[in-house]
């Protein structure tokens, strides 16, 4: 009997505890920056698309929900002509973000993406592309990569020397 009364008492004491319910959607929960939610495609610091369509995200995806097609603009810069994520298959494991060598694809702390129809969960590139750098400010793949693209010639990337004169036998 005493044990019951003690149980009652302990539970009764919760009257004076703080409520833990978060009144979503009036109050938004606090989501940490690493949260693996809606996937976006970010841009590099000069506002150009970061994705170079290397296909690593699509192959890393355990469920195969990412598909893309590489294209190349007139300056030689690679970009995805097509980028599609079927969120109705996505498991938000983050392997795509981890696989991305240009910090383009990122998972964000946005989890509100329910739909009544699965078909509406198919996101194309225009739905994915954001205007900023997202979680990784500052990184610009083409500044590191040796490829010559519009506005950046050979030897102008980080840690590069100008092109050698191949007509010369001298150093």
């Amino acid at each position: 009997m005493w044990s019951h009364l003690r149980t009652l008492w302990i539970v009764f004491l919760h009257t004076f505890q703080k409520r833990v319910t978060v009144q979503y959607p009036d109050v938004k929960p606090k989501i940490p920056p690493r949260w693996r939610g809606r996937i976006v495609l970010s841009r590099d610091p000069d506002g150009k698309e970061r994705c170079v369509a290397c296909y690593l995200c699509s192959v890393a995806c355990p469920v195969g929900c990412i598909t893309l097609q590489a294209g190349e603009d007139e300056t030689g810069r690679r970009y995805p002509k097509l980028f599609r994520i079927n969120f109705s298959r996505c498991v938000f494991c983050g392997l795509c973000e981890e696989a991305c060598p240009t910090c383009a694809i990122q998972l964000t702390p946005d989890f509100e993406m329910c739909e009544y129809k699965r078909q509406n969960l198919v996101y194309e590139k225009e739905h994915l592309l954001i205007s900023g750098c997202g979680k990784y400010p500052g990184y610009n793949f083409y500044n590191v990569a040796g490829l010559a693209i519009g506005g950046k010639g050979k030897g102008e990337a980080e840690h590069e020397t100008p092109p050698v004169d191949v007509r010369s036998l001298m150093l």
Partner: protein
Amino acid sequence: MWTEIGWPLVVVAGVLFVVLNLAAVLIWMERRLLALWQDRYGPNRVGIFGVLQPVADMVKIFFKEDWVPPFADKVTFVMAPAIIVVTVLLSFVVVPFAPGVIVTDINIGILFFLAMSSLGVYSLALAGWASNNKYSLIGGMRTTAQMLAYEVFMGLSMMGVVIQAGSFSLTEIVEAQRGLWYCIPQCVGLVVFFVAGLAETHRIPFDLPEAEGELVAGFHSEYSGMKFGMFFVGEYLGITLISSLTVAMFFGGWLGPWLPPVLWFAIKTLIVLCLFILIRASLPRFRYDQLIEIGWKYMLPLSLVNLLVTGGVVLLMR
């Protein structure tokens, strides 16, 4: 004329109105209180503090399909939920809410209550049987066994009060507590009655007939829509009834200073109701055989002893 027919009609209407609404409000209250003790908010979206939640529930439950499983015994299946509501409502006939605010102050009020509560068991037993579902059947059987165990000492636990008050009429019992509430001299009776009341209303820790985790929903597994609603309302009516009776028999009914008697009655009833809910929030469930064991092995002897002692003391006092 007015007092012979009119007043009782007002009382009947009033009691029906209050009691039925109370059942509805209780749904909301229980959910809010459970939430309170579980660090949550409970329903808070419909109306201010979610008070209109019962209305929403009602609307929903009314618009649900009125479904009778094809394998059920149809007549019994439909009748069963009505029985519980009717019997519990009839029990309210003898509850004195305030001086004069009683449907009929018969002099065997307690016996009438006991009779009605015994009848109420038929509802559950029949529902369990008519559903033609093994879980329901087990639920129904458990109800019956529980009833057999608890009706006995429930009646006996009330007898102490009856002896002390010298009447079966609840009005008189309340009046008899003007000096001292029976919760003091009849503390054992109170405990036993309350335990029996818990069992009577199938509340945790004695909710075996419906034991969700075991029997899915026991006797009302197959019920839905308004028929389920009637069981639901019946349960809350039962809780209110037991609380009212507890108040009437042990806590001096409407007695109290300053406030009008009806309010006193209501406040006391509410506190007992809260206790019901707190128990539900806190305690685990007994096992079926343990329940029976408690009934026969502890509660019955206890109530008998209580009765003997009370009888003895009353005789001595004379």
